[in-house]
């Protein structure tokens, strides 16, 4: 789960990272008042969870409170890279002489945190690491030992900093690592870290993504993850306990595993466009599949639904009852094809067939998808 800049910035500040004074507001009037309090010039920044916000016009400079109000009025209610703006952050403007990059991320393959520092900020760090690896200091950190302050200073020197700069920047990098660990982050990033003409460092952007699997131990953040999902269908998916990804197509899919869901989507995509990805995980119940059917069919215009289930951990016979109940209660008229294999498969097939679902007993996903294509072309259910 990504945090908004104003939330991340506040958490960074609690670990001692210098950040500009700021406040998040939801109206132009408030934006103007905050600009007065802070004293112009200020920056008005759209609070959206999208990269490339600055290039998309989501960051405005304001020389006076009136300009701050105007900028907020323009941003609020608009969309930046498809994301609606309902809040802006008004921050004191920092004079920038130089920009640096600081980040801590998960090196998935090594299975360790990776700390990254570059004396060139404000750019794509992945791009810089590809074209000029020598300008990026990067190292994995032991979870047992953590990042030592002297290691952070070594990295600052590797990145080309000298003298007192290394001490200041290393302290900020160390604090960023502490934020990463404390909040179970997948990514903690300052891009850019500004260096003012007076030689002071300040984080003028703040990015923090928290591991969804760890949210149960971060109730102190008081964040409702569902509220962060902009797509209403994807939000509904999270509410009912499935992973739903909205796609632009005409064939709905439901699968009992992520890999199976991707394979189903890929194979449907050979001839039609999948309307969604939906994965139930390992907690299938009758109710869950009833609701999953409702979610998939929520957007109209579908031409067919393909269901792909395995009964390993999942009671697929219970899920089958939910599918059938939905079809009967809602008079579904498009073809629904199900492939359901594993523990209690015969019982599952019987339930599905009685409920008007076309059952494919082959193991190959493409045979199930081909059966659906055939029915779609015949125009029967």
């Amino acid at each position, binding site marked *: 789960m990504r945090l908004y800049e104003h939330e991340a910035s506040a958490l960074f500040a609690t670990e001692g990272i210098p950040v500009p004074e700021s406040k998040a507001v939801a109206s132009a009037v408030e934006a103007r008042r905050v600009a007065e309090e802070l004293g112009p010039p200020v920056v008005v920044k759209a609070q959206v969870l999208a990269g490339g916000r600055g290039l998309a016009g989501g960051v405005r400079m304001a020389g006076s409170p009136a300009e701050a109000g105007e900028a907020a009025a323009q941003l609020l209610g608009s969309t930046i890279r498809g994301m609606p703006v309902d809040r802006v952050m008004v921050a004191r403007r920092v004079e920038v002489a130089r920009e640096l990059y600081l980040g801590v991320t*998960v090196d*998935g*393959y090594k*299975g*360790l*945190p990776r700390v990254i520092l570059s004396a060139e900020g404000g750019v*794509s760090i*992945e791009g810089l690491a590809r074209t000029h690896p020598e300008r990026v200091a990067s190292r994995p950190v*032991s*979870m*047992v030992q953590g990042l030592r302050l002297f290691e952070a200073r070594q990295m600052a020197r590797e990145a080309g900093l000298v003298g007192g700069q290394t001490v200041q920047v290393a302290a900020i990098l160390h604090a960023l690592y502490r934020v990463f*660990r404390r909040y*179970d982050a*997948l990514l903690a990033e300052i891009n850019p870290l500004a260096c003012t003409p007076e030689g002071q460092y300040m984080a003028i952007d703040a990015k923090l993504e928290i*591991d*969804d*699997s*760890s949210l*149960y*131990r971060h109730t102190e953040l008081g964040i409702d993850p569902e509220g962060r999902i902009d797509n209403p269908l994807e939000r509904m998916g999270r509410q009912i306990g499935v*992973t739903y*990804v909205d*796609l632009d197509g005409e064939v709905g899919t439901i*699968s*009992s*595993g*992520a*890999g*199976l*869901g*991707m*394979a189903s*989507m*890929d*194979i449907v*995509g050979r001839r039609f466009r*999948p309307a969604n*990805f939906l*994965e139930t*995980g*390992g907690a299938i119940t009758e109710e869950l599949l009833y609701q999953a059917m409702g979610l998939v069919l929520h957007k109209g215009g579908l031409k067919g639904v393909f269901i792909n289930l*395995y*009964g*390993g*951990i999942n009671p697929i016979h219970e899920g089958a009852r939910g599918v059938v109940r939905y079809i009967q209660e809602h008079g579904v008229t498009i073809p629904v094809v199900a492939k359901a*294999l*594993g*523990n209690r*498969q015969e019982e599952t097939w019987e339930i599905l067939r009685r409920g008007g679902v076309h059952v494919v007993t082959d*193991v*190959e*996903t*493409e045979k199930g998808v081909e059966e659906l294509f055939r029915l779609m072309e015949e125009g029967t259910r």
Partner: protein
Amino acid sequence: MSILLDRATRVLVQGITGRVGQAQTRWMLEYGTNIVAGVTPGRGGQDVEGVPVYDSVSEAVSEQEAEASVFFVPAPFVKDTVFESVEAGIKLIVVVTEHTPVHDAMEVKEYARRHGVRIIGPTSPGIITPGEAKMGIMPGNMFAPGRIGVVSRSGTLSYEMSADLMAAGLGQSTVVGMGADPVVFTDLPELLALFEKDPGTDAVVIVGEVGGVQEERAAEFIGREMTKPVVAYIAGRSAPEGKRMGHAGAIIQGGLGTYESKAEAFRKAGVEVADSPMQAAELVRKLV
């Protein structure tokens, strides 16, 4: 022959008294797994399906000589349960649990390396040596004994892949579901190395998916060290960028983790890339 698990392996089930633990213990016993003990703290002295339950792993090890353990414990307890198991002398662990915090997984991976313990998962469907034993949740009827090794990031696709191999007349030596979290305890090249050494395995099928660099690293390993034929299938060709596709690790980000990158790495290493599990099974049949 097989890797990691056979009918003699003395298996412990952790979280055995939970709903899933009980049901899966029954399926594993029916399959022939040598389950010697279960552990649920506070439930020692009970039994599940005739298997004695202990309060601690050290009791299960000293009383029943358990050597491998399969976890059905809730995600917040995975880390501590690994520490307890390793200290008690367990050498192989399968973590079926989903949603283990990534920072816990990083801590466990570093710890397991230092202690020389093999851990599969998290979010693993388990390990199955068909006809002998299984540690995990795989439905037994989707597998048959044979000489093809299977490694899969996805659980459900490990079933489909094995059943497709069966339909093509090919059984499996061992099938390992390595899990698809951003951090997994045992990486793809390590599992390929085990199959390369196993005299009971003639060829290996990799079921990969978008996200991360496991497939790219596996391709480097294959090009460098593998002599047995390898075929790959990669799920998620049509996955959009920036979305987690059900698995925490299945996400294309900043242009990394794409289908194209993985398919190209495999092809460069001489690995044929199939368009579906069924096609992968057909490719293997031609190779062996």
